[in-house]
């Protein structure tokens, strides 16, 4: 059952001929269990259709597993700071649930949405890592995947930066500075508060949505049991009264099936989208953290430069032979500082665009989810009322 496509793939809407319109559409399908015992896993078929010139051809099919998606997400997170990277479904904690049909379907749907969001994002869709993910053969993918366990491979300069970050953070703590440096931007503060609170509200709605799914299932089960019991009693009673009980029992069992169906629908079209947005908000929080890091780096470098300037002037006054060295260091730091400032400002700019895009998309997606919820409940209520109503004339017959 194909869920409603929540994110549009491709870019503009004007009806030009399809071949001239750049498009990139991906689907994640066909989950298959591979391997044995503890090492068993699910593999998915990823089908790409595109006319992007950078791609090898109009269509490509590859086999991917969950950790490949994780690789892609991590790479994108590292490279595109400031952009809200689409969230991934969680690794499953409970062993026995891992291969249930429902869980597999939920995961497949989430992975499909994940890739499509990337494919329809103007910047992310250009990513080389995405191309690799969608086209590389399984062996290459495996190499890349095992290469990147845990900490990413960083360039030496970045390593230095990390070192410096750690150093300064430690010294801050040692010197008794209360908090690391933070932006004093009231609008940004408001945004951060919004994001954190939004997560709470969404999480609560999702929790109750999940419970409602469970309740539907329990109600369905109890209707089924009740129906069986009614049928047994009907068989025992015999005659008209017995028939009435049997009819009631049969109807009850029919309703049970309706409820189970509706429970599944509720899960896939309502509860999952809510969960998806909880994850999306968590991804935003990760970007917020990145922005904070970038800001801190920028500030620290700025401070370090000031100190170096003072030092340089001192050296120049004393005509020390260390001047040359110090000048080179100073120039490097200046470059690094500019880079850090650039990085930070890029993040800010991207975030501003992203937040607009996120809100618009959320409004649409939540709208669809609530629409599905209302439709489903209406369908259920009608179905139940109709089913019972159709029983009434039969009962009349039995009692006459």
């Amino acid at each position: 059952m194909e869920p409603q496509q929540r994110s549009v793939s491709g870019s503009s809407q004007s009806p030009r001929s399809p071949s001239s319109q750049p498009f990139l559409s991906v689907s994640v399908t066909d989950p298959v269990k591979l391997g044995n015992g503890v090492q068993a896993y699910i593999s998915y078929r990823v089908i790409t259709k595109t006319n992007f010139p950078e791609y090898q051809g109009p269509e490509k099919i590859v086999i991917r597993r969950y950790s490949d998606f994780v690789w892609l997400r991590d790479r994108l997170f590292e490279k595109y700071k400031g952009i809200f990277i689409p969230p991934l479904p969680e690794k499953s904690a409970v062993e026995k649930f891992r291969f249930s049909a429902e869980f597999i379907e939920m995961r497949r749907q989430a992975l499909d949405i994940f890739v499509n969001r990337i494919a329809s994002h103007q910047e992310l869709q250009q990513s080389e890592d995405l191309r690799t993910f969608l086209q590389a053969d399984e062996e290459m993918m495996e190499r890349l995947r095992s290469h990147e366990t845990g900490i990413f491979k960083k360039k030496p300069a970045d390593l230095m930066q990390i070192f410096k970050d750690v150093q300064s953070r430690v010294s801050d703590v040692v010197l008794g500075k209360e908090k690391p440096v933070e932006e004093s931007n009231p609008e940004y503060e408001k945004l951060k508060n919004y994001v954190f609170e939004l997560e709470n509200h969404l999480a609560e709605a999702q929790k109750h949505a999940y419970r409602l799914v469970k309740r539907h299932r329990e109600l369905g089960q109890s209707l089924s049991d009740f129906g069986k019991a009614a049928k047994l009693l009907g068989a025992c009673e015999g005659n008209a009264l017995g028939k009435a009980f049997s009819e009631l029992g049969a109807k009850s069992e029919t309703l049970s099936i309706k409820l189970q169906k509706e429970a599944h629908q509720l899960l896939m079209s309502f509860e999952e989208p809510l969960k998806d947005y909880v994850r999306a908000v968590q991804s935003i929080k990760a970007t917020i953290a990145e922005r904070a890091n970038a800001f801190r780096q920028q500030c620290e470098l700025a401070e370090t430069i000031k100190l170096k300037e003072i030092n340089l002037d001192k050296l120049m006054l004393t005509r020390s032979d260390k001047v040359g060295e110090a000048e080179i260091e100073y120039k490097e730091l200046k470059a690094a500082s500019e880079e850090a400032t650039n990085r930070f400002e890029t993040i800010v700019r991207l975030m501003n665009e992203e937040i607009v895009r996120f809100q618009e998309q959320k409004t649409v997606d939540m709208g669809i989810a609530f629409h599905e919820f209302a439709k489903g409940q209406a369908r259920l209520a009608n179905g139940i009322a109709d089913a019972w109503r159709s029983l009434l004339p039969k009962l009349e017959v039995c009692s006459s």
Partner: protein
Amino acid sequence: MMSHENHGDEDASGYADLRESRDEMESLALDDSSNGPASSSSLTDRQSRRTAFNSILEPPSYAEAIFTSFDSSSSNGFHRNQNLPPRPDPFSHSDFLRIWVSDPRKEQELAANSLVPGGTTYYTYLITTRTNLPEYGGPGSEFSVRRRFKDVVTLSDRLSESYRGFFVPIRPDKSLVDSQVMQMGQFVEQRRSALEKYLNRLASHPAVQKSEELRVFLVVKGKLPLAKSIDVASRMLDGAVRLPKQLLGDAAAAAAATVEASQATQPARGGRDLLRMLRELKQSVANDWGRVKPLVVEEDKEFLERKEWLVEFEHHLSNISKEAETLVKAQQDTGETMGELGLAFVKLTNFETEEAILDSQRVRATDMKNLATAAVKASRLYRELNAQTVKHLDKLHEYLGVMLAANGAFSDRSSALLTVQTLSSDLVSLQSRIEKLEAASSKIFGGDRSRMRKIEDLKETARVTEDAKSCAVREYERIKDNNRDELERFDKERHIDFMDMLKGFVLNQVTPRRWQMRGRISQRKLSDMLEMAAENFGFELLFS
């Protein structure tokens, strides 16, 4: 008393959520003019956004919807308050006899002969009766007495003695079932409700309704003038209680009958009856294990088939009753979770509206709010639905009680049969002893004085035993008749009751009773509400 408070959620925090959310639901006004916690936004703003939604549907009022206890015992509507019910319709059925139990009071037992000062406490209840029956004073009679549970036990014991073979309703338990734990207040309320049900069942039993024991219980103020058990001697002395007519035919026969004979019409009890109990025990063992078939046996094939059927019926009834309970709980849980979800929606939409930094968020706000309201109303609908479902399916529980009463009636029959069998075999052994003695003494010329005396004694005993046996047989036949009449009545009433129950249950699922009764003009069903909500969302979704 909110029995559904006990339905905690799986985790402890869930239970706290439940309490909280119920409070919030109760504060959620129907007309949406104010909303729970985050209602800092301008009231006028929200009021202006009020849609057609609010005029559509008038769900039941708060008090009714939320505080309807699932345990609301009374189909007769006299539960919590002290107001007496309306006067009975004078043209109503002439066999009108209705009872209310109320006003539990704690009293002190004056323990004159106890070593500990003070005494135990016990509760009394006000028993109010309204009736048309001539035995009670004719149409429009009304009276109250105060009774304690011990009195009810006495009443129940006496009724089972007097009405052997009838399906006499079973009285409430003396103590709690092991698994139950509750506060005193809750226990008293539960008992009060159970007593009311019990007394009304007695009142609607065609035979018991006319009983002297019940009348005395309901009418006579002060101490209950019923002896705890039927000690024949004390019964004869006790002028307040007429001996049940059906027992001994006319007064002359009653006087003539020996104590021994009439005792045969009662099951064996302790004390003086010890000997008799032993004899009957011996007889029943002989019945089960002896090689010789007893002289009198249960011959009524129809009865035996019926009994077998009843065993199967009881099994299925018990099964469906259990499933009905589970169903009710599931309906209740669904309603509650729906309500919590609705509340979460409300909070989310309020938050989005207030904290919105972009207009795109505000667009959906009205629609979301309406959907949230629909969800909360759906929750109330479930609650209402469930309260009615409980009332209907309760019939199943009730008939489990009837099955117990039937078992009682059948054991009356078998114990009466046992008495007949015992007396029969006594008679047979007496006859054979007499014969032996006669044979022995005939060999002695001129007779054997002592043996002759013995024979005379035995013959006398045999005569008495013969009388007792006839009494016992008459009693056994009487009980058999009662059984048959009751079974017929059971079949007829069961058929009607169950058909009504099924129809009521199904009708209720289609439209809850209160909505039927409201009969308002624009009465849209929940599904319409939800469909409208769905449309509102779908309207702008061009690609859905």
